[in-house]
C-alpha cells in the first residue's frame, strides 16, 4: 500500500506538471498580449516594457514557466508586487490580487457545494438503486428507473431556474442561494446552499440510482450470493454484506470522478445560482485572459481529479482483496 501511494503521488505530480505546461503553452498560442490590455490607451513602448517586467512576462515562455513552477515551492520576487511567498501562484493580470489567496477564498464555497450535494445524491441515489434492485421488475423498480431516466435528462440551468422561480420566488420555501462560511453560521450555511445541493442532486442522483441498481442486480445473480443463501444467511444479510460489497467498486469509481469534477468547479451551477466559487473564477479568468489565475484553477481542478483517482484506487483495494496494490 505504501509503495503504491508513493508511486501514485509521484505520478500525479508528473501529470500536474504536464497539464500546467500545456496550459502555459496554450495560453501563449493565443495571440493576445496581457501587457497590452493593462497598458491602456496612452501606451508607449517604455510603459509596455515596464508592465511586462512587473507582470513577470518579459522573459521567454520556458523561463516564465520555470519561474512559475519554482515560485510554488520557493516563492518568488516580482518587480511589480514585491515578494510572493510560497506557495506562490503569481498575481492576477486582471485585478492584481494574489492567485493563491483568491483560490483559497473561493474554495470553501466550492467544497461546500460539492460535498453537500454529494451527501444528498449518494444517499438518495444509492438508496433508490438498492430499493429498485430489491424489488426487481416490480412497480417500485420501474418507478425508480423512470424517475432516474427523467432526472438524468434534465439540465442544471433548466431545473435550477425553475426551482428558484417556484421554491424561492413563488412559494418562498427556500432562501436565495448564498454562501455563509460553515464556521460563521451553520444554519445559514445550510439554508443558503440547500437549493443548489438539491438541484445538483437531481442531476447526479439518477446516475447513482441506475449504477447501484444494475450493479446490485448483477451481484445478486452471482454464484457466491447463492452460496451465502445456501449457508442459511438471510436475504437482508446477503443483500448488504455480500451483494453490496461487490456493487460498491464501480460506484466508488464514478463518485471519485464526479467529486473531482465538482471541486474543479461546478461552472454551470455556480453561474446559475450566482455563487462565487472556483467554477466562476475559471470562467472569468478565461474571459479576462488572466493567465496566472487560469493556471491556478486548472492545476487545482486537475489536482482534485488526480487525487480522487488515487483515493478511489486505494478504496477499491480495501473493498476487493483481489486487487493488489504495489
Amino acid at each position, binding site marked *: 500500500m505504501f509503495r503504491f501511494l508513493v508511486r501514485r503521488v509521484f505520478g500525479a505530480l508528473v501529470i500536474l506538471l504536464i497539464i500546467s505546461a500545456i496550459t502555459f503553452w496554450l495560453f501563449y498560442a493565443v495571440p493576445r498580449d496581457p501587457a497590452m490590455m493593462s497598458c491602456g490607451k496612452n501606451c508607449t513602448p517604455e510603459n509596455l516594457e515596464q508592465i511586462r517586467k512587473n507582470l513577470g512576462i518579459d522573459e521567454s515562455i520556458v523561463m516564465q514557466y520555470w519561474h512559475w513552477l519554482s515560485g510554488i515551492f520557493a516563492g518568488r520576487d516580482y518587480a511589480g508586487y514585491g515578494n510572493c511567498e510560497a506557495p506562490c501562484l503569481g498575481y492576477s493580470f486582471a485585478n492584481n490580487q494574489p492567485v493563491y489567496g483568491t483560490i483559497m477564498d473561493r474554495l470553501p464555497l466550492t467544497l461546500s457545494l460539492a460535498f453537500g450535494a454529494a451527501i444528498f445524491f449518494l444517499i438518495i441515489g444509492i438508496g433508490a438503486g438498492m430499493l429498485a434492485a430489491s424489488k426487481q421488475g416490480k412497480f417500485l423498480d420501474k418507478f425508480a428507473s423512470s424517475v432516474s431516466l427523467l432526472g438524468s435528462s434534465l439540465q442544471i440551468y433548466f431545473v435550477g431556474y425553475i426551482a428558484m422561480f417556484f421554491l424561492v420566488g413563488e412559494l418562498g420555501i427556500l432562501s436565495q442561494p448564498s454562501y455563509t462560511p460553515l464556521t460563521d453560521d451553520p444554519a445559514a450555511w445550510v439554508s443558503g446552499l440547500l437549493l443548489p445541493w438539491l438541484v445538483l442532486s437531481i442531476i447526479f442522483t439518477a446516475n447513482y440510482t441506475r449504477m447501484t441498481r444494475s450493479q446490485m442486480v448483477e451481484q445478486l445473480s452471482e454464484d457466491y450470493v*447463492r452460496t451465502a443463501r445456501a449457508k*442459511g*444467511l438471510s436475504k437482508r444479510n446477503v443483500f448488504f454484506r455480500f451483494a453490496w460489497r461487490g456493487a460498491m467498486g464501480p460506484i466508488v469509481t464514478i463518485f471519485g470522478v464526479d467529486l473531482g469534477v465538482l471541486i474543479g468547479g461546478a461552472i454551470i451551477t455556480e453561474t446559475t445560482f450566482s455563487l462565487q466559487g472556483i467554477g466562476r473564477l475559471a470562467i472569468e479568468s478565461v474571459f479576462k485572459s488572466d493567465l496566472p489565475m487560469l493556471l491556478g484553477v486548472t492545476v487545482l481542478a486537475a489536482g482534485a481529479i488526480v487525487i480522487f483517482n488515487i483515493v478511489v484506487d486505494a478504496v477499491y483495494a480495501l473493498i476487493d482483496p483481489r486487487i493488489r496494490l504495489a
Partner: protein
Amino acid sequence: MTSTEQQPFLSVRDLKVHFSTEDGIVKAVDGLSFDLAKGKTLGIVGESGSGKSVTNLTILGLHDRDHTSIEGEIVLDDKDLLTATERELERLRGNKMAMIFQDALASLSPYHTIGKQIGETYRKHTGASKKEARARAIEMLRRVGIPQPEMRVDDYPHQFSGGMRQRAMIAMALVCDPELLIADEPTTALDVTVQAQIMDLLKDLQQEFGTAIVFITHDLGVIADIADDVLVMYGGRCVERGTKEEVLRDPQHPYTLGLMSSMPSLDGPVDVPLEPIPGSPPSLLNPPTGCRFHPRCAFVEKVEGGLCSSEQPVLTVLEGRGSACHLPKEQRKELFADSVASRHN
C-alpha cells in the same frame, strides 16, 4: 431405496418445477420422485439442462420464488420443505442440509476470508463466538486436508488453488455436520487427481458423519466411484433408476446406454470408437411429444405404432429399479447387446 426397512431421510414425490419466462413456461423438472436414506449416496446423472441442478436448488428453497411454480412434495426428516417458511428454511440451510457447488471460485465470496466464510455458517447456526468460529474453521480446514490451516484460514479464496478451494467449500458445507449434503458437480472443474482426492474426502466424511449425499454429475465414472443408487434424468424427468450396479451393468433405457457408449472404457479394447448421442438436449420450453428422448433414440422404429412420439412412457419402479421406455423389456437386452456389439466391429 435399497433397503426398504429404513425410513427415507429425504423423500421427493412427483416434483414439478416450472418457470414462467417471457417465451412461455419452462418445465425444468416434470414429475420426479426419489428417496434417500441416511448415510447413502444418490447419484443423479444427466446432461446440462436435464433438471439436475434445479431439483437440488428447489430442495434448498433457493429457486426464484417469483417466477417458479412448484408442485409435489419434498420431505426431509418429516419436514415438508415446500411448505416451510423462509425462516425455517434459513435454519435448515447450512445446518441440516448443505450444498457444494461446482465452481468454487465463483461460489465463494471474493470479499471475505475463507475462515470468515466457514465461521459465519457456524456462528449463524450455533451462536458461537467469533473466536470459537475461527477455531472451528481451522479445525474444518484441517479435516478437509488443507495444510497449515492456522495460516490459510485468513486467506482469501483467490489465494487458494482450485482443489483447495473445493476443499474449503466442503469444509464450509460440513461445518455444522449436515445430515444431507447436496454436491452439484463438485469435481467437474478439477483435474483428475484432485478429483479423486475430493471424492475420497467426501467418502471419508460420509463414513464419519453418516451424511446422506445427493451427488449431481454428468460423469458416469464419478457415479461408479461414489454412488449407491443412480437416477438418470432426461428433459426434467427420471428415465431410469436403480442401484449403481444395476444401472451401470445392465442399463434399461436407451439414453443410459447412450451415455455409457459415449464414455471410453479402460478395460475394453482400445480401438472401440466412442459413440456420441446424436442431436441435442430437448427444449424444456417446448418438449417433444411422447417420450422426450425419442427424437434422439436409436430404437424408435423397434416400437410399434409410433408409440414413442405419441405417448409418454411411464416409469415403472419395482424395488427401486425402473425405467421409462416403450421398448418391451424382453427385447431390450438383445437390442442393446447388438448395439454394443456393432460398436466393437
